[in-house]
């Protein structure tokens, strides 16, 4: 589904972040991208979202080179990206509002888009129905992130990109949302790429883990993790071993 072809990316006046980087993601896979701060994790996500563009090489999604954000790609950020002046419902509707604003032009909205503001299902699924009239400033971090997820899923994406989505949440909320995300990914048959600096999160969520190093990154280090998202995986020895291995590899870098 995703193919990075000899991708090179440089920020002005900074060292190269990616140098001839190749990577491939199949449809329906759940990936965690792990690495230390400044390794280019977020940059990679922005490249996949069509919000940044490589200096050379290509980002292909479904065989098409990416030249702008794709309507079927959902992006969820650490700070939720909610409009502070809009209620939970209005925030959840924002993506659909924007699509309605442009109409089905195939560029900003899918060509078969029919104007609708149907978000009730997602508000309900994410437990937000009692909060629909609240503003982001009135609800907890976990509820804000649920709102951001509802907003993204209302657009029926096929690819979900998440940038440290749970890192500012407390542990029980974080684990609850990790589980919920994995459930939704399975339910909606999404391809998931989650960027994180937390080893435990990568090991729990990613069926495959892409390890990034200090830049420039020129080789995709992939660690398979086929047992991720098994019930009680956090207590399995396999999980503990993987965490140890990841910690060691990150320490070696």
């Amino acid at each position, binding site marked *: 589904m995703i193919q990075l072809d000899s991708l090179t990316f440089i920020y002005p006046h900074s060292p190269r972040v990616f140098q001839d980087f190749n990577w491939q993601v199949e449809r329906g896979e759940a990936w965690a991208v792990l690495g230390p701060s400044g390794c280019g994790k977020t940059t990679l996500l922005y490249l996949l979202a069509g919000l940044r563009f490589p200096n050379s090489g290509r980002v292909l999604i479904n065989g098409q080179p990416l030249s702008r954000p794709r*309507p079927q790609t959902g992006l969820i950020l650490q700070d*939720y990206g*909610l*409009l502070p*002046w809009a209620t939970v419902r209005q925030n959840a509707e*924002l993506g659909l509002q*924007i699509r309605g604003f442009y109409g089905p032009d195939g560029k*900003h909205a899918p060509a078969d888009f029919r104007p609708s503001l149907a978000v009730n299902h997602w508000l309900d699924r994410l437990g937000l129905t009692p909060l629909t009239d609240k503003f982001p400033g009135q609800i907890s971090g976990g509820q804000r992130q649920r709102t951001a997820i509802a907003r993204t899923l209302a657009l029926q994406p096929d690819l979900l990109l998440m940038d440290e989505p749970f890192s500012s949440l407390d542990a029980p909320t974080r684990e609850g949302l990790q589980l919920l995300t994995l459930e939704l990914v399975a339910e909606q048959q999404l391809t998931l790429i989650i960027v994180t600096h937390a080893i435990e999160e990568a090991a729990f969520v990613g069926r495959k883990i892409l390890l990034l190093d200090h830049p420039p990154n020129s080789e995709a280090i992939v660690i398979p993790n086929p047992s991720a998202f098994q019930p009680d995986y956090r207590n399995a020895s396999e999980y503990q071993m993987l965490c140890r291995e990841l910690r060691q590899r990150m320490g070696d870098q």
Partner: protein
Amino acid sequence: MKRQEILLTVLALLVAWYLAALLINRPILPSPIKVGQTFVSELDNGLVDHFLASLWRVLASTALAIAVAAPAGLILGQSKKLNKILSPVIYLLYPVPKVVLLPVVLLFLGIGDLSKVTIIFLILFFQILVLVRDQAAGLRFELIQSVRSLGAGRRALFRFVYLPASLPAILTALRQSVGTAVAVLYVAELFATQKGLGYYIFINGSTLFNYPAMYAGVVAMSLLGLGLYFSVDWLERRLCRWQSVS
């Protein structure tokens, strides 16, 4: 402030005024009762027309200032390059007390409504421009990116992010400058006009020596300022509810 608190404060001020009038006991400070009676009788005697002339000038200049300054502030807030070029100009012009430009404005635009509207416009323009610019520039990069990822291009960003984000800035700017605007309107209406509360206060105070009518004019001008202030307050509570509840 609660309605009850406002009423009590008004009452306390009226009592203080009444006591001061009793103590001073001279025609230059009539009691609030006398001024109240004059206010009512003057309503039929042209005070309403003067009030409406002043109100029209403030409203016209406010509308004009929002129409010009808000889009300009949004553009400057979005474009770092343009802001870099223009911010020294704004930095220098912003603190200049615009009222001193009144003679210049009168020379260029004549003695009609245009010069009075222009001078108030200048005061509001800079205030709105600066606040809207800072608000637009302060929108977090992540917020913009996340809305872009929902499919928003420049037009949708403007409609769904920049425009609603600038609303509190416009209202704050108005709240901060509406008092100054009315004060400057008073000064502007002293010059070459026969309509407006400034003229009414001046002519009754210094030519006709009708002090109760002069005070009725002062009350009318205060009501104008207060009315505008309360309107902005009401709009802010209605349109920016998220700020007070969050």
